[in-house]
């Protein structure tokens, strides 16, 4: 069972530990706000906008698809919204399975689909102003691998 959650509070990155005796592998992904010091002025903050009525529903659909494809024993997908600073965690995915191949594949799938199918939008605040992040073609390609 993969738990999904959207929250304004900082993410809890405590490890997902085995419950019951079947867990042999846990894979986690955590996405962090990069400071982008090399780019003009660096990043001051990142703000995540989302579509509340749809977000958890979209995440639950993505999680259900992962559970249909791989034998997942436990998992979580937690996405932060609102304003955050460089170094803070934006999203955390954890998947427990009996074997590592399924845990790796499911975690990567969850991220690839979340990046392209969940209604979040990033705005970057820099010294020069705030701009919306453009979607990346590489994310579409990553998601298409699983079609």
């Amino acid at each position, binding site marked *: 069972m993969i738990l999904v959650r959207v929250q304004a509070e900082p993410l809890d990155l405590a490890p997902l530990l085995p419950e019951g005796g079947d867990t042999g592998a846990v894979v986690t992904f955590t*996405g962090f706000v990069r400071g982008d010091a090399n780019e003009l002025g660096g990043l001051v903050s990142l703000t*995540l*906008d*989302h*579509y509340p*009525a*749809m977000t958890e*529903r*979209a995440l639950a659909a993505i999680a259900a698809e992962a559970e249909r494809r791989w034998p997942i024993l436990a998992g979580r997908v937690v*996405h932060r919204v609102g304003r955050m600073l460089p170094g803070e965690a*934006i*999203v955390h995915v954890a998947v427990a399975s009996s074997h590592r191949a399924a845990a790796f594949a499911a975690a990567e799938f969850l*991220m690839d689909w*979340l*990046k*392209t*199918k*969940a*209604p*979040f*939008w*990033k*705005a970057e605040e820099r010294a020069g102003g705030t701009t*919306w*992040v*453009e*979607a*990346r073609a590489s994310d579409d390609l990553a998601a298409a691998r699983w079609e």
Partner: protein
Amino acid sequence: MIELLYFAWVRERIGVDGEVLPLPEGVATVAALLDWLAGRSEGHATALADRGRVRVAVDQVFAQADTPVTAGAEVAIFPPVTGG
């Protein structure tokens, strides 16, 4: 009536979070709704100028150009998503 919701730069260009409107006469699909909305104000026109950069969800599910839009629908219009 239909409820329209705007996010990210679509919201900023249109200038409001959303609006509740009577379903315009002759509008039965997402594509027709976007065509009609683009004529509503300069902000709407700017936001919807490049349809390839706009995504739509009807009742919280991603929609295509030919997805039906009926009275009572919640139609969200936004840029390609960039979460994660």
